[in-house]
């Protein structure tokens, strides 16, 4: 019996790097795409015969920089190496701009049934500030083209908490986006690593600093508004119309196994968390020289850690950690095992204890890290 898993493929190319980006991606390297895809195929073949795929997720970077032909070849390769579930959810992330309906139809013909569009904002000034290469109207056009090409299950990524962003422009973006009725919305609060261009601009005083209080207000506004539009807030940063939750990500949050291929991709198989090397050149070099290991980190998660991760990931979800599930899968009573942490967090108003589950309160959703770290096991010092 083949193991049922999710498959993640990473595509580390973008036309130009956005000013907030800290993802694993490159600019000005598009000429290396063919070689990279060859490497990816070899890596796929290395796992041949082992898995049955419940979901496939192309993330990046900007996977939509691949041609339809390159997609088709990749799917052939995947189809040879694995069996794919008839109901499999197959997502491709894309950025607005230069997306024709012909291209989208080709993707559909390859089997892609879910699109995730990096809209980020529907305000041109904000898009400029973020260093995005598209305008608001191009983003809207991309969405419409996708619908016309027969895609029903579409996600939009939006970012809030931009430097200097008030509540009003956010409200406008959100209203406009929700009124188009995408099945799924991911809202991310801008967080900057020191290397991001925006971080430098804030440091230099060109932009105002990030304002977590404003971001909190924006998040609360989103919760109220999207509820009105009929979305379920099923995970900290994710909203969906009923039945359109992202199955690939849900399975990650439920600690189900997944295989990640490509640069910097992570896997969780047989209780091992592995992450591939994060450098494109190193990845290509390793695959070309026939190396069996592309992995930068490999960690066997012990019982303590598995449990902690399971709780942390489950708490991200609307329904929280199901006490019966933990009893079944880990043989423990969550309420007893974490009684100190739980009573502290309940006192702080971050956690709510229901009869059958533990979940974040609205306040806790804003302060998730404060909840999560408390569930980590003591480090052996």
């Amino acid at each position: 019996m083949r193991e049922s898993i999710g498959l993640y493929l990473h595509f580390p190319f973008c036309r130009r790097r956005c000013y907030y980006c800290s993802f694993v991606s490159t600019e000005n390297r598009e000429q290396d795409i063919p070689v990279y895809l060859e490497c990816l195929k070899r890596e796929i073949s290395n796992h041949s015969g082992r898995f049955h795929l419940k979901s496939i997720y192309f993330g990046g970077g900007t996977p939509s920089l691949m041609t339809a032909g390159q997609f088709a070849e990749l799917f052939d390769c995947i189809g040879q190496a694995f069996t794919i579930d008839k109901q499999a959810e197959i997502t491709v992330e894309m950025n607005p701009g230069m997306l024709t309906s012909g291209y989208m139809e080709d993707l559909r013909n390859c089997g892609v049934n879910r699109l995730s569009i990096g809209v980020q904002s529907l305000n041109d000034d904000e898009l400029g500030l973020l260093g995005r290469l598209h305008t608001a109207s191009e983003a809207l056009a991309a969405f419409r083209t996708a619908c016309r090409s027969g895609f029903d299950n579409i996600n939009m990524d939006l970012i809030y908490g931009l430097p200097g962003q008030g509540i009003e422009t956010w409200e406008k973006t959100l209203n406009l986006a929700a009124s188009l009725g995408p099945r799924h919305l991911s809202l991310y609060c801008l967080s900057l690593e020191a290397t991001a261009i925006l971080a430098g601009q804030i440091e230099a005083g060109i932009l105002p600093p990030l304002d977590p209080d404003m971001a909190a207000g924006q998040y609360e506004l989103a919760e109220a508004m999207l509820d009105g539009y009929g979305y379920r807030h099923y995970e900290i940063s994710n909203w969906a119309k009923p039945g359109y939750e992202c199955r690939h990500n849900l399975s990650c949050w439920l600690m189900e196994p997944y295989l990640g291929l490509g640069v910097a991709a992570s896997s969780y198989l047989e209780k091992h968390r592995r992450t591939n090397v994060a450098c494109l050149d190193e990845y290509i070099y390793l695959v070309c020289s026939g190396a069996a290991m592309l992995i930068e980190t490999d960690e066997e998660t012990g019982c303590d850690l598995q449990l902690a991760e399971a709780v942390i990931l489950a708490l991200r979800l609307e329904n929280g950690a199901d006490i019966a599930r933990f009893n079944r899968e880990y043989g423990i009573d969550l309420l007893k095992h974490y009684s100190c942490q739980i009573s502290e967090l309940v006192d702080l108003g971050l956690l709510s204890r229901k009869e059958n589950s533990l979940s974040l309160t609205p306040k806790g959703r804003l302060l998730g890290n404060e909840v999560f770290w408390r569930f980590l096991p003591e480090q052996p010092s």
Partner: protein
Amino acid sequence: MDQKSIRNFCIIAHIDHGKSTLADRLIELTGTLRKDKIIQQVMDSMDLERERGITIKAKAVRLGYHSGAGELFRLNLIDTPGHVDFSYEVSRTLVACEGAVLVIDATQGIQAQTLANIYIAMEHNLEVIPVINKIDLPGSEPEHVMKEIETVLGYKSSEVLLISAKTGQGVSELIEAIVNRVPPPAGRSDLPLRALIFDSHYDDYKGVIAYIRVVDGVMETGAKLRLMGQGTHLEVLELGYFAPGPTPEDRLEAGEVGYIATGLKSVKECRVGDTITLASGGARQPLIGYELPKPMVFAGIYPTQADEYADLREAIEKLNLNDASLTFEPESSPILGQGFRCGFLGLLHLDIVVERLEREFGLSLVVTVPGVKFMVTKTNGERLAVTSPVDFPEPTEIQKTEEPWVGISIITPSGFIGALMDVMQEYEGAYKHTEYLGQITVMGEESQRVRLEYEMPLRSMLTTFYDSLKSRSRGYASLDHEFLGYREARLVKLDVMVNELKVDAFSRIIPPEKAHDTGKSVVSKLKEVIPRQLFKVPIQAAVGSRIVAREDISARRKDVLAKCYGGDITRKRKLLEKQKEGKKKMKMIGRVEVPKEAFLEIMKLG
């Protein structure tokens, strides 16, 4: 060697006028050490000293010198600590000498500690040789400084030497002057042994090493000795001198300077200033009255993590072996847990001790606001010595409070007089006297220099006084102070509450009219340094039950949840682990997490 050929001298100077550099040059020129062997300044031996540029422990070096007239001399150069905190040690060092080279910077002229030093030297009847140093510098003004020395110190220009300790210019002439002008030691080898301890340190292998000046009699290896002040008995395990490394010898005669290894376990048993004599048949009269340096500044020292208390105790005890002027006693605080109330000679001494505890013993410490020792007479007649604000009685119980005062001497270009008068007023200084010194060029302009005399409570000096003085005089004013005695005071205790909890570590004793301002600056500083918590935190300053200042730290509403992309859970978890580790470094005040830096910032406010 014949006693007539011995010269014992020290170098005294205001900070950075070139004492250590001159010592190096003397060692080099007398051929005691080849130039390539002088790894920077030999006399400052502790790392910490080198970094701060301050001499903490005095050392003695023996230099051989053939004079211009062809005679062989033995020069003992005794280094002195350069900071007022250690003025007791300076004065003991001077007792061991017959002469002093007074170094004055040609670009700065006489400074506050130049005067303080020369007064002590004159008190001990030392032959003083004034030298103007750094004449190689383009901005130097030896003529002006010369005039200042003539008018202020009363030396004739023919008595003053011009040198550059850096280039060596004039240093040979200085050595000749030392030989010719400093008298040889006067003691007698045929009298019963009397030797002065002018410094000491603890060595892991040899126990306490005492630096000594033999005044009368002869010191020999194996001799059984007695300290006349303390009564300690000891045996000379090893004896010798520094050249500049330790060089063992069999005997030291009257007039000589050297060291003895005693095997004693702590410098407390072998205090600086005590007189050594033979255990039996010794001298009757000690050389000088011997006293213990008194701690003037007190602060609580606590481990950041309660479980490091035992390590802290061990570390302090160990430091104390080498630093007898550090006092400590256990103290416990409801917020900070178990720690020690420590006494120091001054703020610099406190800094040095804390830094050594952290650096050499790897401890993470919280230090409370430094204060002085108050003498409080209660209404019931009881008299208390209060070194911690916690013990300060309620206003209704106090009949009289007394606090230590210091005399302050500031030397400054006259252009800053106005600014400095403001500073002094702000810090409760009482004006005494102005004295005119010479002219010197300041920022390209001729300027009259003056010496201002004030008196102020030591308490006030422990705050941001020194920084204000420096910044308001753009670094041109120099400062010296001496203890005057206790005076009556009107004082109250200012308490600080974090989230309704009184934090003793932040309490301080202040005049009532300052309560509002001080309270305000403390609470706003705390608001700045305490990170936002998950709930609103009020910060209040109060005198008794009267709130004098308040700020609220609003609750944190949102943290940053990085996008969890590509299923990289490990990376996300690492971030959480870091956050968790960060919490451990916090000191809990009730439910409020306070970073250790907050204590430091509040301490800096004074």
